[in-house]
């Protein structure tokens, strides 16, 4: 067990609590950048999707996990980002500008939809966002002069100057860089007043107002920032697939984002990444183990979505904090070995609250 002796306030504000944390995260990032050296194109392509989904999931995490506003319409922002970037690069705008522009357009959409919708709460909000996603899907299919409707659009691989991200490895570096910046930006927001205000809104709206937090304003900000990151991810997604059509952005995509952050662990940055890794990995594991499964299971249609659904149910039942919660427990086990007690993470609430409330 290690104790950190903090002597300055800045030590609480810094990104990494101590040098070793910094070292491990740096090692992780370097390791991620070195990965393509040892893996083939297929794996690299999977890794690209992990990065893209993690970026989108981080966007949704800010809104659902930290601000407590559950959206089941995030596929819309993903779509807006993808289409904005496709249209802009198609018109000759350099990718380096189109990428943030895609995020901004999505963010703007988030703000516009946020203003009326965020006066709702809970289930009503979720259903409203879902309705919004349907509208966007429909608009993309009908606005043929701009989006070519259901015919879909071809998207060129992104390039900066004369450098083209046309191989899996190159695209992976791009997606990974975007993901790292997204995570850093999110972390920065979360350690600042806006991030605290978001969490405050999630925990108690009444108290948040008493702190001087303008609910509508900060919910709208959360919505816009969330949509911004998801839009950026959408842009990359379009470029990666090189072909987009409204069918790529259905309700199912929104639900998958939601599933990712629930499985990964609501209310944690790690959760967004864990969730997307899990989401990409699960089908692979199923394919690999398929030969060893009994025929009755193997030949079932919808095996993947079935298992995915089952996983969500199991996580909600047994590990509401998701993979991140499990990760914390395993870490704690090793830190305190051999003193770990199973009940360490149980709420002390149950017996402390007797009589006094």
């Amino acid at each position: 067990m290690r104790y950190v002796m903090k002597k300055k306030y800045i030590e609480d504000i810094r990104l990494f609590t101590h040098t070793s944390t910094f070292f491990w995260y740096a090692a992780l990032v370097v390791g991620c950048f070195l990965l393509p050296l040892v893996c083939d194109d297929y794996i690299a392509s999977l890794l690209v999707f992990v990065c893209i989904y993690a970026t989108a999931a981080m966007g949704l995490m800010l809104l659902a996990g930290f601000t407590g506003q559950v959206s089941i319409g995030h596929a819309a922002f993903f779509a807006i980002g993808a289409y904005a970037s496709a249209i802009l690069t198609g018109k000759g705008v350099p990718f380096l500008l189109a990428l943030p522009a895609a995020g901004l357009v999505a963010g703007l959409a988030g703000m516009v939809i946020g203003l009326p919708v965020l006066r709702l709460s809970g289930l009503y909000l979720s259903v409203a966002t879902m309705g919004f996603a349907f509208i966007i899907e429909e608009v993309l299919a009908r606005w043929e002069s701009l989006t070519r409707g259901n015919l879909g659009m071809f998207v060129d691989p992104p390039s900066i100057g004369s450098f083209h991200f046309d191989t899996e490895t190159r695209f992976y570096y791009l997606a990974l860089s975007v993901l790292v910046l997204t995570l850093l930006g999110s972390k920065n927001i979360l350690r600042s007043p806006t991030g605290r205000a978001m969490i405050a809104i999630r925990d108690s709206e009444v108290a948040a107002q008493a702190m001087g937090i303008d609910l509508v304003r900060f919910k709208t900000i959360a919505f816009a920032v969330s949509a911004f990151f998801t839009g950026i991810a959408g842009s990359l997604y379009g470029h990666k697939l090189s072909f987009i059509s409204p069918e790529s952005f259905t309700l199912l995509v929104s639900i998958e984002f939601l599933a990712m952050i629930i499985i990964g662990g609501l209310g944690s940055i790690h959760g967004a990444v864990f969730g997307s890794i899990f989401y990409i990995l699960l089908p692979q594991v199923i394919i690999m183990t398929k030969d060893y499964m009994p025929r009755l299971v193997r030949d079932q249609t919808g095996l993947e979505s079935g298992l995915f659904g089952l996983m969500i149910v199991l996580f909600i039942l047994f590990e509401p904090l998701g993979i991140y919660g499990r990760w914390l427990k395993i870490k704690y086990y090793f830190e305190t070995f051999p003193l770990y007690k199973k009940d360490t993470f149980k709420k002390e609430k149950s017996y402390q609250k007797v009589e006094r409330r």
Partner: protein
Amino acid sequence: MSFFEAEDISIRFGGVQALHRVSFAVNRGEVFSIIGPNGAGKTTIFNCINRYYDLDEGAFRLEGRDISKVRPHVVADLGIARTFQNVELFNKMSVIDNLLLGRHRRRRSNVLTELLFTGSVRDQELESRRKAEEIIDFLDLQAHRDQLIENLPFGIQKTVELGRALTMEPVLLLLDEPSSGMTLEETEELAFWITDIKAEFGVTILMVEHNMGFVREISDRILAVSFGEAIASGSTRDVLAHPDVLKAYLGDEDAFAQG
């Protein structure tokens, strides 16, 4: 003109007249208590000040400015902090983060500078932290600094809530039953703190309280309400001895005699 005034405030919930033309005035730098039996409308007064409810009639004035029409978060922006009867803290956050939320109204950063965590955001965070730490020292919360609220006992939670209100550096502090659920020792400590807050920080305090010993000890003036009406107001000694107040608390002497 008093520092803070309630002018003929009335509010009705369906068939219940929760407050009827209640008026009072709080002077700068005093501890003003509102007492009354259960259901008298004391907390309703606070909820109206905070704009959780809309007044049917009347107005609140802070230094002459009408604050009964502003949006709820503006009340805090103007420097009115409050605590809640049953504690409204941010349960999944640590004590220090709860206190830092008190600094929200003092923030100068916006979401863009925060995204980049510029030097000015860092300096602002350090300054907030310094202020929060002053409050932690004042309320002896050092041992709990990094704990999650949901893991703390109720008495500590109440103290954290007081701390969070103080971190806002308010001009007017609303305390809703600060001593309820606290042990005798905690209540005694609270009395010291409130006296100190008044003397050292120069904060005006408006308090709803049931514990009469506590009220007697620290209040400068008192308003007694019963069934939504003001029945007495004035200096602590006068109000606590007022026959209507005794009647509201203990019942009618005749009724008692009649059994």
